[in-house]
């Protein structure tokens, strides 16, 4: 975070290409050595409405969007009206002077015939987005070469598009250059830096799945989870993977379980409503002890709710999902980097303990772009924890659900050896056959729950952030990480001794360590995108500890750091 950070918004109606402009700009900035965070705010429709893509550019690490805006790229008149209040006085509002009608005088206005320049210089009015991109970089004092190189690469798969886009971008660049002195806001310039990745949270999840050797994904499209399926489908051929669009979420999860039983790593992804349909089969994975990774991209509201918005209200749902009791694991990454490595870990844990693992994401993580150091996979090993040939040779009789000390029974895949492999949804004996025997039932419940001991050791402890001397504590989880971390920085720089505890692995709950941190704090508050403060309720359940303050937001929009700062002053400092 830095005062010199630049905030750009690209706004318009669905279908106008805000994301294309945003991603190209973001990528050019990242290639130019800047750190970029970009978030998306979309309505649940295909065309029309009002959407925006917000980019923050810095020379330091940025993990969240911030306000006010310095440059507004308004692709229609409505966007000018909706967002001009958010633009600083020395900022710029770029719009199509021939298409968008703006009535008032405003010295921030930079009207430009975007479509006409695209048509005249590039040969097609669809290149108008490139005109806007060129203009933006001219205003910021960047060299056109930065853009030209990236545009050639971006459009390289559509070779006929390269020249027109570059010409259009140059037209916008030159037109804005003459008037660029109008802008006197932050100008983060290119600097030398290591090459960094620019990707969304869900791209990172999907990349993690491919790294983990996931070979099967079944899902039913549901916002905001669908981006995972689409990314995997686009890479499936190359990675010997099958991505199957199931007839419903119930089929999706049952397919994922079937593929896992047959011996390949598999996953499904959905949102809360779809997970509601999956709940029975979630229990099937548990009792049949079939490894399974489920991504729940949470969204606000029961039933349909707000499909394209963000919320963190499924934590206690996934913790208790399905009848009866069984061990499970819950992760909630807060950055693209965490999403990548935790997805890999989810597959590893699922295989090692033969349990279902849920990775909670949400729109805020899913669709936001993060700047990350290149992911390093050299140390990653894929362990399947299956019976080896040697172990098989020393077996007297294979028992799929053998009672063991660790609770983990020997797993083989059907057809691999000269014996049969069972999987059963009933309570079963060691061979996997139906039983109602009271003693065996008790033994099996206890066997499955013995896995908790091992699982508890696998869980990473919550991260400690901010001023470690502080006796005030903010506690959060998942995608609120960025806003919370920045709020703590702001408070620390204002001389308030606050630190943060941030969870990205929530279950099994690391009770002992959390208790120690909470005991040290004079006062603590939770930061959550939900109404009932679910992490606070979890800590009450596990530790009988109640927070002193609740910083909660359930508008379907992510936290801004400033909101957390204000709420903290009110709720905790009083």
């Amino acid at each position: 975070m830095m005062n010199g950070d630049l905030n750009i918004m690209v706004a318009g109606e669905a279908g106008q290409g805000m994301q294309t402009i945003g991603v190209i700009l973001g990528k050019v900035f990242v290639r130019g050595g800047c750190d970029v965070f970009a978030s998306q705010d979309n309505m649940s429709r295909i065309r029309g409405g009002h959407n925006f893509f917000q980019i923050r550019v810095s020379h330091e690490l940025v993990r969240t969007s911030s306000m006010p805006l310095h440059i507004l790229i308004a692709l229609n008149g409505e966007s000018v009206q909706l967002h001009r209040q958010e633009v600083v006085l020395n900022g710029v509002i770029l719009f199509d002077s021939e298409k968008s009608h703006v009535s008032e005088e405003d010295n921030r206005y930079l009207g430009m015939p975007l479509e006409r320049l695209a048509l005249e210089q590039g040969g097609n009015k669809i290149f108008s987005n490139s005109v806007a991109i060129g203009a933006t970089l001219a205003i910021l004092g960047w060299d056109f070469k930065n853009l030209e190189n990236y545009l050639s690469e971006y459009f390289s798969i559509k070779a006929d598009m390269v020249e027109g886009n570059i010409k259009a971008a140059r037209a916008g660049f030159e037109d804005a250059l003459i008037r660029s002195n109008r802008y006197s806001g932050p100008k983060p310039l290119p600097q030398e830096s290591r090459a960094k990745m620019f990707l969304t949270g869900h791209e990172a999840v999907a990349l993690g799945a491919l790294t983990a050797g996931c070979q099967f994904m079944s899902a039913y499209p549901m916002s905001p989870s669908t981006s995972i399926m689409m990314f995997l489908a686009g890479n499936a051929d190359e990675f010997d993977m099958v991505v199957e669009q199931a007839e419903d979420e119930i089929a999706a999860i049952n397919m994922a379980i079937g593929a896992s039983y047959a011996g390949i790593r598999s996953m499904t992804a959905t949102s809360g409503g779809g997970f509601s349909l999956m709940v029975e089969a979630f229990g099937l994975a548990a009792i049949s002890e079939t490894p399974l990774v489920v991504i729940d991209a949470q969204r606000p509201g029961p039933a349909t709710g707000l499909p394209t918005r963000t919320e963190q209200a499924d934590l206690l749902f996934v913790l208790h999902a399905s009848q009866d009791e069984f061990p499970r694991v819950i992760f909630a990454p807060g950055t693209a980097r965490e999403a990548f490595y935790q997805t890999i870990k989810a597959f590893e844990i699922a295989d090692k303990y033969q349990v279902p693992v849920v990775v909670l994401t949400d729109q805020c993580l899913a669709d936001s772009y993060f700047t990350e150091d290149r992911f390093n996979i050299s140390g990653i090993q894929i362990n399947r924890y299956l019976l080896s040939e040697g172990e098989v040779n020393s077996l007297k009789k294979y028992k799929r659900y053998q009672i063991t000390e660790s609770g983990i029974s020997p797993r083989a895949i059907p057809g691999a050896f000269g014996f049969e492999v069972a999987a059963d949804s009933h309570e079963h004996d060691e061979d996997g056959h139906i039983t109602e025997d009271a003693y065996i039932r008790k033994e099996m419940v206890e066997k499955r729950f013995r896995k908790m001991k091992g699982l508890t050791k696998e869980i990473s402890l919550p991260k400690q952030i901010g001023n470690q001397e502080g006796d005030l504590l903010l506690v959060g989880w998942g995608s609120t990480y960025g806003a919370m971390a920045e709020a703590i920085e702001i408070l620390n720089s204002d001389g308030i001794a606050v630190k943060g505890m941030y969870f990205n692995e929530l279950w099994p709950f690391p009770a002992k360590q959390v208790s120690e941190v909470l005991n040290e704090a004079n006062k603590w508050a939770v930061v959550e995108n939900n109404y009932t403060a679910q992490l606070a309720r979890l800590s009450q359940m596990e530790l009988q500890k109640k927070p002193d303050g609740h910083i909660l937001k359930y508008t379907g929009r992510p936290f801004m750091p400033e909101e957390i700062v204000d709420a903290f002053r009110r709720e905790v400092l009083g």
Partner: protein
Amino acid sequence: MTITIKDFENDVPMAWCPGCGNFSILNALKQALVELELKSHEIVLVSGIGQAAKLPHYLKCNFFNGLHGRSLPVATAIRIANSDLPVIVIGGDGDTYGEGGNHFMHALRRNINFTLITHNNQVFGLTQGQASPTTERGFVTRVQTHGVFLNPLNPVTVAIAFESPFVARGFAGDIIHLTGLIKEAITTKGFALVDVFQPCVSYDRIHTFQWYKDRVYNLNDDGHDTQDLMAAIIKSKEWGNRIPTGIFYKNSESLTFEQQSLVLKDGPPLVKRKHDPTKVEKLIDSFL
């Protein structure tokens, strides 16, 4: 080493009613496996919940006994993961056509190479005799107290309408015929349905073994052309004093899921393919 019925036997106590048609279907399936020389550890039986769905426990094999109605998605993915393993799905009419009705339709669409054997007794046995999707109109139960007035689902007609590779109906009272149907279903490339009349001895006093014996005939003895889609549909609707069993329809031209999937059509089964981390490195680089 010759495979015999003994190779498929285990000592799991059975929970079926004495005289149930399930026993005959189990015997026919075992006989078919023996005749096809399949080994117990090289096949997978998949089932849901119900009396019929317990069958995989009574036959030595790899099995996945999952949730009520959800056998078909599980079977689908087992085939996708390992196309070396023959998969046979076993279920009752409530399991397969009621709770799993949507999956049945989509399994027909997907045309994955496995066999579905439905023990169709027109009744929910395990929950004490309620109507199933295939129950005849007028049948009175303790829930359908005025008799069923919903139209029954005819799975054979539905499967033919999807132009499935193999659509047959058997009768638990004719094990030899049923064995032949199961054998041909298993060797068929693509989705094969064997819907089996299996009288419920506990909850259906009307559709008894004798009731069926008096009515069923083998339509393949009657000069039926199994390539003729419309003739197959018409035959599938025949119900009354004469009820056809046998092979209604065969479509040798339909392409399976496995044959059409770019990933699956060539090379070893997915489960035998090696992970290549260099491909991941390349993909990671594409985000720089």
